[in-house]
């Protein structure tokens, strides 16, 4: 038992932290981060290329693919510091998902073509999984890919595709066998999203922001080598991405930074009687409860990474981390808004924190929905983790 990072990891944390603080434009204490999916996308790519030069972008990749084979705990530190400092530039779709998938399932040719641009931080990928009628039940997806001999013909619609409006490529799941059981007729493909038969339609969210898109494939022709791995094995290819740390440490790290900011705010802000808000005991207790939730999420995130570092597949821990982390993000946003009093409805710069907790309060509404709703996560904990009987596998049924 040792609840402490080792020296080498701590040194890495220090190095990374100095680098980040140096990179941040202006003062760290007032740095609020940027909207990577919006006008600041180019800036985030710039940082990504710098991360690539430092070797950090793909530090978890095996050495033979140009990575450092970095430990899971080191990756935790990387994600923790980047999140805490609101630093853009990470590459979830390319470096974290597609890269490792190609290493396992891609042909040498595919690896040669697609890995270097990812490793150099030059490209933005996006992920086409969900469809309008396939959300929690993803395996029911219908986007149709037909083998036309010398090419694939793709028709269908993907939805909630974040970054599609900024990406150059999309990796996606399509149905290649309509007769097989639903998980067994799905394949994994790549496409150039600038293809003239692919339409990217923005989806504006309730905060008025553009993160998501609909991606419509209409008679899109893809070369035969757009298929990754075996035909009809796409579901399993997509499901077995375990090469990277995915502890969800981003949530508590982000929350801790917000926590510190909130504390500063309530220490300085006075109510109408001139008393600092921090002395309001409800506010005080709210912050202590929040501190506990942040630590809880962090402990579980560390455990996920630790289990991965031991070569174990986390059973319930990944779902627990997702549930705790996303609920935490929602709670932080709500608290920030609540602390703002009547300004809690104002999104301009007259509001505390420039109204920055208000739009997130709307943004984070989606956190407990995307990538497996809280309900789906609890199903997973109960059935896969705790061994409770799956409802759809029951044999006897009541009349």
């Amino acid at each position, binding site marked *: 038992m040792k609840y402490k990072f080792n020296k080498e990891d701590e040194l890495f944390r220090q190095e990374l932290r100095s680098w980040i603080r140096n990179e941040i434009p202006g003062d760290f204490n007032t740095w609020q981060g940027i909207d990577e999916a919006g006008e600041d996308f180019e800036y985030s790519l710039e940082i990504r290329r710098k991360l690539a030069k430092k070797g950090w972008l793909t530090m978890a990749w095996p050495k033979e693919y140009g990575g450092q084979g970095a430990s899971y705990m080191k990756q935790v530190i990387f994600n923790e510091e980047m999140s805490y400092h609101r630093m853009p530039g990470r590459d979830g779709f390319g470096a974290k998902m597609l890269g490792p998938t190609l290493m396992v399932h891609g042909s040498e040719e595919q690896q040669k073509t697609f890995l270097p641009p990812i490793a150099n931080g030059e490209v933005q990928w996006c992920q086409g999984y*969900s469809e309008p009628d396939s959300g*929690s039940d993803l395996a029911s997806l219908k986007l149709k890919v037909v083998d036309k001999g010398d090419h694939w013909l793709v028709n269908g619609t993907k939805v909630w595709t974040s970054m599609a409006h900024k990406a150059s490529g999309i990796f996606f799941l399509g149905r290649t066998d309509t007769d097989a059981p639903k998980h067994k007729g799905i394949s994994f493909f790549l496409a150039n999203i600038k293809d003239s038969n692919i339409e990217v339609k923005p989806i504006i969210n*309730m905060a008025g922001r553009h993160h998501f898109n609909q991606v419509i494939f209409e008679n899109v022709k893809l070369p035969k080598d757009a298929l990754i791995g075996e035909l009809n094995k796409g579901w399993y290819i997509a499901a077995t991405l375990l090469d990277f740390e995915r502890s969800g440490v981003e949530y508590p790290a982000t929350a801790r930074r917000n926590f510190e900011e909130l504390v500063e705010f309530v220490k300085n802000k006075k109510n109408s009687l001139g008393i600092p808000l921090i002395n309001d005991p409800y506010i005080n207790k709210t912050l202590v409860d929040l501190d506990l939730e942040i630590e809880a999420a962090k402990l579980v995130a560390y455990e996920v990474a630790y289990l991965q570092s031991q070569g174990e597949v986390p059973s319930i821990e990944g779902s627990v981390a997702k549930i705790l982390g996303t609920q935490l993000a929602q709670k932080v946003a709500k608290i920030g808004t609540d602390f703002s009093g009547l300004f809690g409805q*104002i999104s301009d710069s007259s509001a505390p924190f420039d109204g920055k907790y208000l739009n997130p309060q*709307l943004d984070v509404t989606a956190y407990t929905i995307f990538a497996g709703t809280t309900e789906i996560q*609890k199903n997973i904990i109960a059935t896969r983790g705790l061994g409770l009987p799956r409802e759809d596998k029951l044999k006897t049924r009541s009349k």
Partner: protein
Amino acid sequence: MDLGLSEIQKMLQESSRDYLLENCTMDYIRAMESDQIGISDEIWKNMADMGWLGLMIPEIYGGSGFNFDDMSILLEEMGKVALSGPFFSTSVIGAQTLLLSGDESQKKEFLPKIASGNLKFSLAFNEKTGSFEESEVSTTTSIKNDEGWTLNGEKYFVNDAVGADYFIVASASENNEGISLFLVPSKSDGIEIEKMEAIGGDKISKVNFQEIKLLDSQLLGKEGEAWKTLSKVFNYGAIGKTSEMSGAAQRVMDMTLNYIKDRKQFDRPIGSFQAVQHHAADMAILTKVSTQFSRKAAWEISNKDNSNINIHRAKSYVSKAFHDVCQISHQLHGAIGYTWDYDLQVFTRKMQHQKLAYGDTDFHQKKISNLLNLK
């Protein structure tokens, strides 16, 4: 004990529901979010014709002479279609302020024009702190002089300032004991209005009053005694918002039930999953209790007294409950409910105003604590 609606309330409920569903469609509501005033002339005129604008104004002043519990039924229906805009500022807040503190000539002059749709009012009370206590009014001053008064100060969170014909401005009295109210024509020199960006498209402004010259006849009520009026007006405001929210909660619930009956995943309606059903049951509980809290408070403010604990119970409970209803609804809708094009999010955004206006849960809980003598 009669928890049902009176015949006249039922009529009001049905006619307003029909009118609002037909005329205040979600397209209209969305269009009004970017409108400066937040209501179309036509609908404002209809509201006058239907007697809504003067609903609580006695008949001798040209109104319909209804009570606040009747108004609460209308506000529930407005909440159901997410209607915001100057109705509340003029016909709830403005009318009540005039009724409670205007002298006979002021009432005779202004109330009929409210009822007929010819005047809009806007209350300028809050300053930068944004509290609903008397101490909030500290930087706005009215100084007595030979010809009358001079008003100076900057107001925040002024609802429906643009388009208002009159501001009712709360200012610190000269001797600084108590606050006073003045009727200030919006055309006066020295008034500057600056928009505050409200998330729900509500019309909220900063209004700067500089060296405004006022006559004695513009004083509303007695000098330094406005808090008695305002504290009552805020109670009407709190219950009014509570009624809107309880109506809106009903609508959000209906929207959600329709969605989960219709949406299929795993080859079955998601509303057949027990976890989804239990979320829906929680929504139903919150909505049911909200309606009872808000109606009881509305009845008591009309029939017992203006200042009683049930007003604070209602606003504190329903502000939280409606927030929770929106959260559950989003969780059950999944991604779609969170898109700009879907109607649910309009309610969620406007909820943020409704729950804060005239005191949030925390504010009203502290009132409850005082009234229960928990000290």
